């Protein structure tokens, strides 16, 4: 009953265009070399939003990797002389009740977010995709069983199921990671199954079968490459949502135990007090902003990738066109007035 139809369909949102029947294009076809296509792909990533996304994600990864070197302070070192300091030059994002530098903590927090996001998504892919391909390749009761299980998992609101699983495993980063991983398995299973089914219909698979290629070979040689694109996009987007789930779970206290309290969601829940709400706004705002930017970055990147993956003629008016339209409109307005009194012109 549940599917990711919406995520699939604002695929088109970003780069939708009408399609016109334009003259003589067939004769324009040429087979482009692979490199050329890759270059086109890159060139299509050149839209401002995507670039922002790339920058953000790169920043995240950098800050996660370089945190020990670039972070001005130790994220768990207590400094009781500088408690609750507002943002300043020494402490760009201020300090918390223990005098710990929020900026450094956020930098380190990137490690946790990235770890959980990437590991959980990769894990989900590693489990989900084989399942999906299997159920597509071996249709029949295997297919039914797998897909029913997926349905059942999808019958829970994801965060709720994640809560339950994390509860069972016991609080901690690993628990949260596993929870998110498990929850996002069905998505990939479905995607893989869908695309694999589409591919299997193709004649070249028939051909491969005909020449007696082994199932594995067919899967690896023919099916996998073809479902790679949608998977990549979905993964990128999912890392974002994984970060969100992580934040939610650790806000509920299922996240990292101390001393790894520099997880973003946990920073918010730890600092969430009347004092913080009324006085120490920075303790709540900056970790939240970190989450927002992180997720935003992944989303932008994902959307950009998707656009680049299945290119369509995107509407972009060149300068001349814009100018032209403007004076066309002007002309028309002017002439509408005039042709009101213009005598009817008879042509024969």
């Amino acid at each position, binding site marked *: 009953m549940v599917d990711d139809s919406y995520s699939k369909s604002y695929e088109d949102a970003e780069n939708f265009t009408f399609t016109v029947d334009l003259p003589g294009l067939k004769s324009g076809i040429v087979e482009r070399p692979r490199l050329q296509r890759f270059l086109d792909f890159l060139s299509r990533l050149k839209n401002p939003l995507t670039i922002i996304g790339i920058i953000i994600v790169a920043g995240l990864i950098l800050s996660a990797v370089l945190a020990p070197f670039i972070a001005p302070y130790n994220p768990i070192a207590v400094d*009781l002389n500088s408690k609750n300091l507002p943002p300043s030059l020494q402490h760009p994002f201020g300090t918390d009740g223990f005098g710990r530098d929020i900026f450094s903590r956020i930098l380190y927090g990137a490690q946790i977010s990235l770890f959980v996001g990437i590991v959980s998504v990769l894990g989900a892919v590693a489990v989900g995709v084989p399942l999906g391909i299997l159920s597509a390749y071996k249709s029949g009761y295997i297919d039914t069983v797998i897909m029913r299980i997926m349905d059942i998992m999808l019958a829970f609101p994801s965060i709720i199921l994640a809560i339950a699983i994390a509860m069972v495993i016991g609080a901690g980063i690993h628990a949260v990671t596993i929870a998110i991983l498990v929850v996002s398995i069905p998505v990939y299973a479905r995607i893989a199954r869908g695309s694999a089914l589409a591919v299997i219909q193709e004649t070249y698979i028939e051909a491969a079968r005909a020449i007696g290629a082994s199932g594995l070979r067919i899967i690896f040689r023919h099916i996998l490459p073809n479902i790679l694109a949608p998977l990549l996009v979905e993964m990128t987007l999912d890392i974002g949502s994984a970060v969100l789930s992580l934040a939610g779970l650790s806000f509920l206290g299922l996240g990292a*135990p101390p001393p790894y309290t520099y997880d973003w969601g946990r920073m918010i829940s730890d600092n969430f007090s009347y004092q913080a709400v009324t006085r120490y706004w920075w303790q709540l705002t900056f970790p939240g902003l970190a989450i927002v930017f992180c997720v935003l970055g992944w989303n932008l990147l994902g959307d950009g990738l998707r656009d680049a993956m299945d290119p369509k003629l995107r509407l972009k008016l060149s300068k001349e066109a814009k100018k032209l339209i403007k004076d066309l409109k002007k002309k028309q307005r002017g002439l509408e007035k005039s042709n009101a009194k213009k005598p009817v012109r008879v042509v024969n």
Partner: protein
Amino acid sequence: MKKSVKYSLALVLMLSLAASGIIILSPIKAQAVTTTLKIAQGGDPITLDPYDSWDSASNDVILNIYDQLVMYVPSTLQFRPGLAVGWQILPNTTIIFNIRRNVTFHNGDPMTPYDVWWSLQRVLPLYLRSALFNSSYINNATANPHHWNWSEYDGDRESFVWLLFEPVKDIRMADIGFWGNTTFTGENATAGDGWDEIVVEFSEPFAPGLSLFSYAATSIVNWKVATELGPHGMKFAPVGAGTGPFKFNSWILNYKVVLDKWENYWGQVPHVDRVEFQTILSASSRTLAIKTGMVDLLYPESADWYDLKSDPNIETWQEAGLGTRYISFQCLQNVTGRMFGILSNTTVRKALSYAINYDEIINGELFLNGLATRMTQPVVPAIEWAYNSSIKPEDEGGILPIYNITKANEILDSLGIVDVDGDGIRDIKGWTNSSDDFKLIYGYNIGNAVRERVGTLLKDSFAQIGVDLEIQGDEWSVFLYDKIVNGAYDIWMLGWGPDYIDPDTYFYPLFHSKFIWSTNGAGVNISSVDTMLEQARAETNQTIRAQLYKNVTNILINEYVWAWCYIPDNLYAWRTTVTGFKHSPLDQMDDLEYVEITPSAGAGIPVEVIAIIVGVVVAVAVIGGIAYWRKGAPA
């Protein structure tokens, strides 16, 4: 188009007219007919059945629904007659209570001595209860229809306070002696016909005996109601079970408990018509609630204390409390295969107690925010006669350790515990069998922010003395009933609230070696301490007792069994609309019958304005729909 504009105008007019009409007609103009006292609590009560209540949320409600034999003079620690008009203490093994007459339960039943007896026996240890029920004088089922099923009744669960009642030997109604040979009709007996005495016998002399009967747990319940309702009913809806100033109205789980004024209260009839104990989980929400006047009274958060203090609409009260908070060390040797045993060394414990930042814990904003005093010994200052005021922390010229990293380091160095492999952590080879690094486990119960933060603090300062601290959070019951008693932690923080106002409660359960796997989690096992505590318990001469307790105190302090942390203040905050609130030194909210409240006008945007706004919004929505319909489908 024009048409729809016209329509919309008409509709807006109509709707706003309707709205204003509703306003005029609606009952909002009439002020609330009842005066309600709203109290914010940090959690839902566990139960409203007195005998197994142990958390403060339940206690506060129960104390207002039920009465006890002995009660406190408001905002003091003096006893006053409760449901017992008086009592004699025969040479310290027996107490005789004279039951108050003409007291009626909330359902109109008169309170009988049998009710008292029945209510008291419930808190006794199981073996004692079975003894009572099966004793010679209550042996026939018709006389005592429920003697056979008392255990099902309480779900085989002993009262949480049963330990305290161990010294009780027998509870009986007076004159049992010569009634014994006649047929017993106890439950029909009414006060005043010679049955109005309750005799409590202790197996051994027990000085603080009287205070046992002031607990919420020993509240007097209507046994008929209790048996009708059964455990579940008593737990969640004890209608008519009590004699207290307020009678139970309703309990919306996880939301609020509502109590109504009980007009026929034997004492001061309440001024307010209704009391609501609202459950507001998050601390900040509670603070906001009282600042915005959504509730009238609460125990404020120490973090937000100064905001409330500075608020002109809010009055606050602060006084030294009776509870203590301490950091306990695992003093036992070689417990169940764990590495430690190093903490069994007094000097190491001393060193560690120098590495604890007491000042931050007491004054830090994340901790007590200055609303506590340094704890210097097991007993609190409020009990002057047993308190040794000469014991002070070092900075005040005393001997108690204060936060002093260098000294801690020196001590450890002098012990020869040094960092051999240069990983920044001292090595303890030779001290224990297992690991090399000096590594300790700090335990706290998840959800207790202060203890968790103390862990963070300790980890930091212990790192400075080359001790590695692992912070481990556990759920409360696991924390208490599994981990601590099985010595799974090396260090942990706990609090102790007095069971009764007597030094005994601060020493006996905590340091007597017979409680080592339960309340004496530190595993203090000093024979001299044991003997002195037993003496003090039996002794009635206060000066001698005082001396004994002071000796014990000295031993414990020099043994560094605990790091004596702080004594939290009792904090109350209430709106200025509330008058006559009696703040109890016991940090509880009984005596609400004296509270008066002046209803205040509700703040916020006037309802009328919002009414109009809502009307317009609705109108626009409707018109939008209509317009779409007209423009859209002709079908």
